[in-house]
């Protein structure tokens, strides 16, 4: 039964490990940050944040390089007079949207994105989206979701965005595979060509590159997630009658194989075909990982919570690169999503959910990991103290899924260690 998922580890994995739940200062981005990649993924969409100057500044700072090539996002900055009366704010929003759409006739999907201030003043963006959809239909569809920091952490912004789209997707009774989660175009193409080679189809993607390519969904839809942070999207798809194929996430050779296996088994792909299609890319992935993992083997790693990629990545580093996770922090733990990866993660590390950053830094200092995976705010301060770090946002902004990127993924972790060795033990700061 080689198409079966492997049994859970003899040691029981981490699925039943006690979880350290923490509450305190969180050193993480809010959900607005997802706009940075979503606006590139959906080429006819505009993301209009209704928020404050802080929101605009965050997007600018998080974009890092300030991508000036015609951003398809902007911030409608609330001003003193908007806070005085809500009717006024709605009228202002209608005016700004009308101006925006008249200047950008190429926009087919408009996302009104809620922020902390818009949530606190209870600006009803759902109703605004309905009203605006009525005004600008059929050319533009207006959605809304919240990317506010009081409700979403970093990658949850993509989850909220996709979850907002699901109820509006057309219905179908066709048996189709839906692959859910934004992937870099090159990775999406690889994923589709692997599925095609396995004879699986039709395959739909969410998000789609254009509004006209949006999938339909219904009781015969089965969906596989390629990102581990799509809890709400999982729930809304399930409500539409679609069925989730639980699997480890497609990171590394093993993760990709198990993910493909889960899909292949659902679609009745025979073992010979599966082996024929995956043998060559599996061998390439193993070879590429081996080159990088020489530097990782036997080293310890500590994850600060950031993108919810932490559990699958810890699984990859532990099983395919020979690293020892000390603590695996994640903003949120979803059993339905992370369970298969937790099953495979060898017991031992502390699994923590949420954050009290000062206490976690104390634990990290005491543990003295060889490599620390953390956000941009912590990376240089930790480097200055002599710790090697991998800044986590790069894991979200780099193609890391599926076979052909498995070596690159390992390389993201080995490079800081290699660099530290090159530069010697003295730290400049």
């Amino acid at each position, binding site marked *: 039964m080689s198409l079966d998922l492997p049994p859970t580890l003899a040691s029981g994995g981490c699925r039943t490990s006690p979880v350290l739940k923490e509450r305190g200062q*969180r050193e993480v981005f809010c959900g607005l940050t997802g706009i940075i990649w979503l606006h590139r993924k959906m080429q006819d969409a505009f993301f209009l944040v209704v928020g404050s100057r*802080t929101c605009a500044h965050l997007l600018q700072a998080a974009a890092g390089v300030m991508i*000036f090539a015609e951003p398809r996002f902007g*911030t409608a900055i609330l001003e003193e007079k908007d806070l005085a009366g809500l009717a006024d704010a709605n009228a202002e929003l209608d005016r700004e949207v009308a101006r925006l759409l008249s200047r950008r006739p190429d926009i087919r999907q408009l996302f009104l994105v809620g922020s902390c*201030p818009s949530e606190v003043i209870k600006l009803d963006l759902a109703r605004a989206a309905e009203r605006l959809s009525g005004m600008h239909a059929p050319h533009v569809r207006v959605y809304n979701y919240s990317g506010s920091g009081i409700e979403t952490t970093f990658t949850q912004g993509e989850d909220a965005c996709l979850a907002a789209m699901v109820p509006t997707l057309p219905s179908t009774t066709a048996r189709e595979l839906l692959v859910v989660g934004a992937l870099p175009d090159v990775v999406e193409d690889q994923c589709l060509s692997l599925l095609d080679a396995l004879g699986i189809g039709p395959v739909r993607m969410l998000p789609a590159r254009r509004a006209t390519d949006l999938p339909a969904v219904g009781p015969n839809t089965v969906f596989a997630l390629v990102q581990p942070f799509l809890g709400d999207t999982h729930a809304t798809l399930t409500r539409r009658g679609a069925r989730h194929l639980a699997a480890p996430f497609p990171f590394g050779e093993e993760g990709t194989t198990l993910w493909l296996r889960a899909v292949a088994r659902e679609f009745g792909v025979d073992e010979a075909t599966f082996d024929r299609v995956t043998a060559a890319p599996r061998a390439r992935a193993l070879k590429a990982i081996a080159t990088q993992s020489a530097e990782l083997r036997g080293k310890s790693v500590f994850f600060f919570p950031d993108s919810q990629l932490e559990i699958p990545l810890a699984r990859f580093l532990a099983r395919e690169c020979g690293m020892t996770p000390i603590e695996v922090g994640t903003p949120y733990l979803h059993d339905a999503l992370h369970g298969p990866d937790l099953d495979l993660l060898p017991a031992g590390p502390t699994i923590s959910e949420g954050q009290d950053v000062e206490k976690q830094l104390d634990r990290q200092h005491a543990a003295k990991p060889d490599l620390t995976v953390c956000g941009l705010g*912590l990376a240089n*301060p930790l480097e200055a103290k002599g710790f090697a770090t991998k800044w986590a946002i790069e894991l979200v902004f780099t193609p890391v899924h599926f076979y052909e990127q498995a070596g690159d993924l390992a390389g993201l972790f080995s490079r800081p260690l290699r660099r530290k060795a090159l530069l010697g033990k003295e730290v400049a700061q």
Partner: protein
Amino acid sequence: MKLTLWTYEGPPHVGAMRVATGMKGLHYVLHAPQGDTYADLLFTMIERRGHRPPVTYTTFQARDLGGDTANLFKDAARDAYARFKPQAMIVGASCTAELIQDDPGGLTEALGLPVPVIPLDLPSYQRKENFGADETFFQIVKTLAKPMARSEAITCNLIGATALGFRHRDDVAEVTRLLSLMGITVNVSAPLDATPADIARMGQAHFNVLLYPETGETAARHLERACGQPYTKTVPIGVGATRDFLHEVAGLTGLSAAVDESGLRLPWWSASVDSTYLTGKRVFIFGDATHVIAAARIAATEIGFTVVGMGCFNREFARPMRAAAKAHGVEPLITDDYLEVEAEIERLQPELILGTQMERHIGKRLGIPCAVISSPVHVQDFPARYSPQMGFEGANVIFDTWIHPLVMGLEEHLLTMFREDFEFHDAAGASHHGAKAVARAEPEDAGGFTPPAPPVGYLEKEEGEQGVAVLGEPVWAAAAERELKKIPFFVRGKAKRNTEKYAADRGVAEISVETLYEAKAHYAR
């Protein structure tokens, strides 16, 4: 509600963070939701600081809003004091916390912490980053600095340098050195690198040097009133301004303004014949008012450029900006909307932009060289080497920085003469820049001139203009298009604009080669 794509300034609490992060021994407790911690990376990544900003964020969530966010704040303030033991604390709210009105000042006062706690009231929906820095530093100074006996030797304080400031680190060093040439030592430089204890002894200084009015003027005015310390009004950026500054200091202290200028190279670099080609190059200058006003003076009188436009994003300084623009004979552009700045640059077609990181991107898009002279900044504006803007070394740095983006003098001549050489052509860019020169592809259609794609900023299509943009505008004859292409890239945009305007003004429907050269003669300077 105002639609913004990119902002010149962050919110006011980021200004407060610039003060707190620049200082030592001060801690900032900020009532803020999850996500506002993004601001840490401005300091740790862009400025490459090796420590976290001394800021504790309360990180309230939606579920806390109905409950007790006030206690959350008190716990965070108490824990922050216990963990960091600062000499003083500042407390305040970010934009979201301002809406829930928890009164961080009152809450912290109730804790009875054994150090001064300074409450900040920064209106997030009205003001911006520079105001936040200026107001925060003023509140710290007001609370901690008291009148006291003057130091025996003549000393001064340097005021206004913050974390994440454009070259603040090196300006402080350069001005300290400059003042030492006059025999003056620096008592305290603040906020950058000062502790609350240092602020408390600012009253010892004989006078204050206001380096950055944007972030220090309110504190300087306060010290003038409260401690009887006059402050300098000249910002020493450029040769002339530095000399004026020395004379101003001489007036305040009775010391001689004559100092050793042997390290100053800008005047000769500018006078030497290689620089002749810089004469009258048209520059557009935009940034914070202080840097722009200083840059305009340098451009016009020390390098020999022509200032064709100038402006600032900080309205607080509109008045001095208007006065300076008038002196240069241009209308000032005072706006924080970068699309307006882009439209103005496109209209003016300058040969060089002196701007911020925003204008650098605009310049890249329009194919106009740009040197950065002001915040907002990016990682490349924090060089490892010493590179002040102020004082005589600052003037040297400015000469190099502004000339670098341009094509070199002799190269400019050669490009004009042999612009169709397949290897040495203008599309390859300046020879001293890193980008790889690309051999020119032979045009598929010899007459197929394609004008540079217009920038696609969505301000392009104003209401009413949509779809009729080309109606009534002159069209280019094929021969004229080919001729236009022979004009070197660094002036081609301007030539195209001028010719089109010339043709439109005279009702010429089709632009011929003659029209092009008539326009050239018309606009010849």
